[in-house]
């Protein structure tokens, strides 16, 4: 009797096991078909392997094994502002029949020469392994820590050159602008030559309005929900603004302003400041943050050329003309550009009804992933980052 009920129970268990295995097979089938046949599934699969590559700053074994072999080439194209240096990371093979074309992402890594920075190479190679063409771009001005409105033309030239690469179509080219590179991406995105074809622009740790950015530097504080909070910027963005504003000054005065913020340079003495023209002195005080109570007066004292430059360098000037989808990413503790800049950008885009997505993070130090992060922070920010990456990879799929 006992053995009969025992064997019945065993049979029931075996039947349940069979149905469980059938369920697993059905699930695996759906996953495999979704990931390979449906464009959103393909974007999600790419994002699944790219996310760990971004967070750990190494390429996961699965990405290396299943990814495309990558070729790195260097190109120089010309623009109105001078040469544009392109580092192209592309799969060695042509695009597969489905979808028959490759997405390309132009990476503007901000100021300085970042072309040999391991994190940027890792990102470029990972994108290429996932089947995209990654193009790092820079210009002589960016290499010398200077931001010029004319470099927007360099970005346009890079976009057009990338659209002509084998396997790439102009409508599948997007821009990922880091830090100061984000502003150039915005300015370029309104250019009639690429305005209607650009797939997306993504701004990571970028500013929205150069004048309000300068105010934040001058006050050494950022304005969050109507309240001023202390904020102490790193030296690099101060140097960039000094170099940039110096281009509007006579060369000797411009050199004084630039040199005042060089690494290890002492603050200017009152006698040295007294030799500067009123606009140069106002710019100095704003950048040095030594007159936080006179920020508005110092902004007003900037020369018309400086005011024009700040306007020309501000995405806020062209926000109404932006037509491409925009992704905004910013770390809440950014010490290079206040995260409130992206909040202001988000508010403007929302008010204008423009297609965009905004995500704030806590796992980055400006645009690089911090080390020693807890699992909670990684899961929380990772899910937000995943959603953004899927959006960026949609044109590739």
């Amino acid at each position: 009797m006992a053995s009969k009920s025992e064997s019945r129970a065993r049979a029931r268990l075996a039947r349940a096991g069979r149905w469980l295995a059938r369920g697993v097979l059905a699930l695996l089938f759906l996953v495999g078909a979704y990931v390979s046949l449906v464009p959103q599934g393909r974007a999600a699969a790419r994002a699944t392997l790219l996310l760990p590559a971004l967070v750990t700053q190494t390429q996961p074994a699965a990405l290396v094994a299943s990814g495309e072999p990558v070729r790195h080439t260097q190109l120089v194209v010309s623009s109105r502002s001078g040469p544009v240096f392109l580092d192209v990371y592309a799969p060695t093979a042509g695009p597969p029949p489905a979808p028959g074309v490759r997405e390309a992402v132009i990476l503007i890594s901000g100021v300085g020469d970042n072309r040999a920075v391991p994190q940027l190479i890792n990102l470029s190679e990972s994108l290429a392994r996932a089947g995209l063409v990654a193009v790092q771009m820079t210009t002589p001005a960016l290499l010398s820590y200077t931001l010029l409105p004319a470099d927007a033309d360099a970005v346009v030239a890079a976009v057009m050159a990338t659209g002509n690469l084998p396997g790439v179509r102009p409508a599948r080219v997007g821009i990922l602008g880091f830090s100061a590179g984000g502003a150039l991406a915005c300015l370029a995105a309104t250019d009639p030559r690429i305005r209607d074809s650009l797939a997306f622009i993504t701004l990571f740790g970028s500013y929205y309005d150069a004048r309000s950015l300068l105010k934040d530097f001058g006050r050494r504080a950022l304005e969050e929900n109507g309240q001023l909070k202390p904020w102490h910027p790193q030296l690099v963005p101060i140097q960039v603004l000094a170099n940039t504003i110096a281009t509007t000054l006579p060369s000797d005065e411009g050199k004084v302003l630039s040199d005042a913020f060089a690494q290890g340079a002492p603050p200017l003495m009152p006698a040295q400041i007294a030799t500067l023209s009123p606009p140069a002195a106002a710019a100095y005080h704003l950048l040095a943050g030594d007159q936080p109570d006179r920020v508005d007066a110092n902004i007003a004292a900037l020369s018309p050329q400086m005011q024009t430059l700040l306007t020309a360098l501000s995405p806020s000037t062209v926000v109404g003309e932006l037509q491409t989808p925009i992704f905004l990413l910013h770390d809440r503790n950014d010490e290079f550009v206040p995260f409130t800049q992206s909040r202001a950008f988000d508010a403007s885009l929302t008010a204008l009804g423009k297609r965009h997505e905004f995500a704030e993070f806590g796992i980055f130090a400006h645009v690089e992933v911090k080390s020693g992060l807890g699992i909670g922070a990684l899961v929380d920010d990772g899910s937000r980052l995943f959603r953004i990456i899927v959006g960026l990879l949609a044109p590739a799929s």
Partner: protein
Amino acid sequence: MLVLALGWVAVGLVVGAVALAAGLRPPMWGARGWLGVLGMGIGAALVGGTLGTLLFGRFFSTAVALWIAIVAVVALALAPRLAALRQR
């Protein structure tokens, strides 16, 4: 490519094993039928992986290998049953 092909073999093996657990083993294959199901899974995964590489690129080949292997082992198990049903 070798690593990728080994991955497809692994996928085929897993699919074959799950198919056996699901009772998807053609009855007429006898005592060694389990080996046939595993072999079918591996073979179909290799074909699927190659097809996936040609159509969707290397990156998606393993996903294609997965669902083609599943289609193959399920079709293998269901074909005799469907044939018997049609004969009735």
